[in-house]
């Protein structure tokens, strides 16, 4: 890796830290200078001993004392009452220091900053006036002061500059690159819209570039896999469509032959056998349509596409018409009730016809021989309701909520007839859900199942079972 992001961050941090440390040292030095002044003050005061006091009192007009020649430190005595010095060469007494001076006999104040370029200290002595106040003055070490000021300002400026530089040169570009990574990560694997984030043809790069290359490679791999899956899914769909198509013609031939034979056989055993074969043919026919539709639904196909205006009266009439032959062979009375007027809905005709056919075919195929199936299409204020009722074995109430789930068949149903996987009702449920219809199952009394499909939001469903039960009790069934 040519450029290391970690190295650059460490370098920038070191530079900023160095300048920051210098600035901190300057500040500390200035603060510690004041502390130093406070510490040397008692030592300086000790230099004004009894001999110095006597000398001052003896000739106050000429008294002064040199303490630290290197910095020009010299002391003069003052009268604490008049704040004047007897020695005419003495500088004026610093009023600000005197004002801060306490009343204690050895009180002192010191100014180590020397705002006017000179530093000063004032302290009380044990001598009597005019020698009871002493002011020491000395030169400020200007070069040091300037140097420290320049260094301090430079260090602070450099620290600020280094911080800003780091912000603009490293942090903000980093943020921008990380945002690009985030934006790219969102579209990883998409067929369009992904933009490569790693620099092209650059062998070097930092950790983010490396991460970008990983992301780009992941995108390519996922996109290729997705394409492969799409291709495989499309191939599977085409394959299923071909199988379904190829099966329909022989199934037609089979159905026609069975239909012909079943119409002309008198022996009950043969007739029953042909009826079973007819039922299987119907099952296979439904399976070819269901497999194709299931494959399309699984691949994300939306039944709300390719919609057209469809008259449900015609659709349900066709479905019941197709089911009549098997119903008659099974001696099931299949009845249809339709409204006077067309029931027009916007839907995908093929998907809806198969979804509704699954319900009717199930009722006819799994109903009791010599039973009844009633298909009622009615309109109501919010749309339509289609009810398919039968007096067959029905479904235990505990299993009703699971009807329509993929591959669900009740144990009782499997025991009665092992054929069927529940695919038909699952497709019906999915198509209804996708196009906004409601599907409900209810048990009928004394036996049977009612499947109700309604358009629009689910409303209060009539208890058709109770009504049919009442019919049975009233003895009007014939």
């Amino acid at each position, binding site marked *: 890796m040519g450029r290391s992001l970690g190295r650059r961050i460490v370098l920038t941090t070191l530079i900023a830290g160095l300048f920051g440390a210098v600035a901190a040292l300057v500040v500390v030095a200035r603060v510690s200078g004041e502390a130093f002044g406070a510490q040397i003050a008692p030592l300086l005061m000790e230099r004004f001993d009894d001999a110095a006091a006597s000398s001052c009192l003896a000739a106050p007009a000429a008294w002064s004392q040199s303490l630290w020649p290197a910095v020009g430190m010299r002391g003069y005595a003052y009268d604490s009452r008049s704040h004047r010095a007897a020695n005419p060469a003495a500088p004026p007494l610093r009023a600000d220091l005197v004002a801060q001076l306490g009343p204690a006999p050895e009180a002192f104040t010191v100014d180590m900053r020397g705002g006017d370029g000179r530093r000063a200290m004032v302290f009380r002595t044990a001598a009597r006036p005019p020698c009871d106040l002493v002011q020491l003055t000395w030169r400020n070490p200007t070069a040091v002061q300037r140097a420290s000021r320049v260094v301090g300002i430079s260090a602070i400026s450099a620290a600020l500059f280094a911080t800003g530089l780091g912000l603009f040169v490293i942090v903000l570009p980093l943020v921008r690159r990380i945002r690009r990574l985030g934006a790219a990560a969102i579209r990883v694997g998409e067929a369009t819209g992904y933009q490569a984030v790693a620099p092209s043809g650059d062998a070097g790069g930092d950790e983010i570039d490396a991460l970008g290359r990983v992301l780009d490679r992941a995108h390519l791999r996922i996109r290729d896999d997705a394409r492969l899956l799409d291709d495989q899914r499309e191939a599977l769909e085409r394959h299923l469509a071909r199988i*379904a*198509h*190829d099966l*329909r*013609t*022989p*199934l*037609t*031939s*089979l*159905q*026609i*032959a069975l*239909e*012909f034979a079943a*119409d002309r056989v008198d022996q009950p055993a043969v007739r029953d056998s042909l009826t079973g074969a007819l039922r299987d*043919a119907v099952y296979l*026919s439904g399976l070819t*349509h269901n497999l194709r539709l299931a494959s399309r639904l699984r691949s994300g196909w939306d039944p709300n596409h*390719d919609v*057209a*205006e*469809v*008259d449900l*009266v*015609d659709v349900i*009439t*066709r479905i*019941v*018409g*197709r089911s*009549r*032959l098997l119903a*008659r062979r099974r001696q099931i009375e299949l*009845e*249809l*009730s*339709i409204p*006077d007027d*067309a029931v*027009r809905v916007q839907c*995908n*005709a*093929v998907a809806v016809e198969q979804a509704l056919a699954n319900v009717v075919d199930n009722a006819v195929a799994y109903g009791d021989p010599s039973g*009844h*199936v*009633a298909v*009622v299409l*009615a309109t109501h204020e919010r749309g339509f309701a289609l009810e398919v*009722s*039968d*007096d067959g074995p029905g479904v235990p109430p505990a299993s009703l909520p699971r009807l329509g789930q993929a591959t669900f068949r009740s144990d009782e149903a499997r025991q009665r007839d092992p054929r069927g996987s529940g695919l038909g009702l699952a497709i019906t449920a999915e198509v209804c859900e996708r196009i906004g219809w409601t599907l409900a199952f209810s048990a009928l009394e004394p036996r049977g199942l009612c499947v109700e499909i309604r358009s629009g939001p689910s409303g209060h469903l009539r208890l058709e079972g109770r*009504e*049919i039960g*009442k*019919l049975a009790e*009233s003895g*009007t*069934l*014939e």
Partner: protein
Amino acid sequence: MTATPPIERTRICDWRSPARARDHGGVVAKSSSNVAGAPPRVLVVEDDPSVAAGLVRGLRLAGFEVELATDGTTGARRVLEAELDVVLLDLMLPARSGFEVLELLQRRPAVPPMIVLSARTELGDRLRAFELGAVDFVPKPFWVEEVVARIRAHLHAPDAAPASRTVAWADVVVNLDARTVTVAGEPIALTRFELDLLAYLVQRPGRAIPRTQLASHALGPLDERTDRTVDSHLARIRKKLGPAAAAAVATVWGIGYRFDPEAP
């Protein structure tokens, strides 16, 4: 095949091509059934031998005169040459596809109704067939019985003339305008509710009518006694019509009642 199921509605499909509907309304196709007593002639254009044989056999048994063409070119030629009542057309045919046949015949006058029978069941195929003039689309696999029902539905298109306002069966005559009912020529007394119920039923022969529908149209607002009320009114109507005529008013399991004047 000796029996066919009743057809609930003669209007089979709303996808019927408007162009085709105009053709049928304006130009009379060369129809063998224009000759009184002649069996309807059906051309089957199907290349699969098993399906074709079964279909031809089933249609002949149902009383049709059937001709078979096993490729699209022959089928199109026979449509133009022969006097036909209905054409059953497969889509995937040798020589000329079903779509090409439809396209060829689309602008020809006096073309008989074309019913498509196909294993191609996608919506696009159906819509294209209707756009090219097919009157119906029967997806494979199908039953011969279903095909027969569809042919008959197209042969007996609804009459444009207003329906008769008198309904007669057995020895009963219901005059819907005069609101009178006679049995064997003698008027019988029905209450207003009974007459409304009977009139509603006899105007929809062969159709199962739910009790709730009968009640809402004949009795007004529904209440909890709807089923019982309808049942008791129908029981009295049957009694007044007599056993022979009452058989035409059948109870339908799970639905309500059906008026079937041809019931034994």
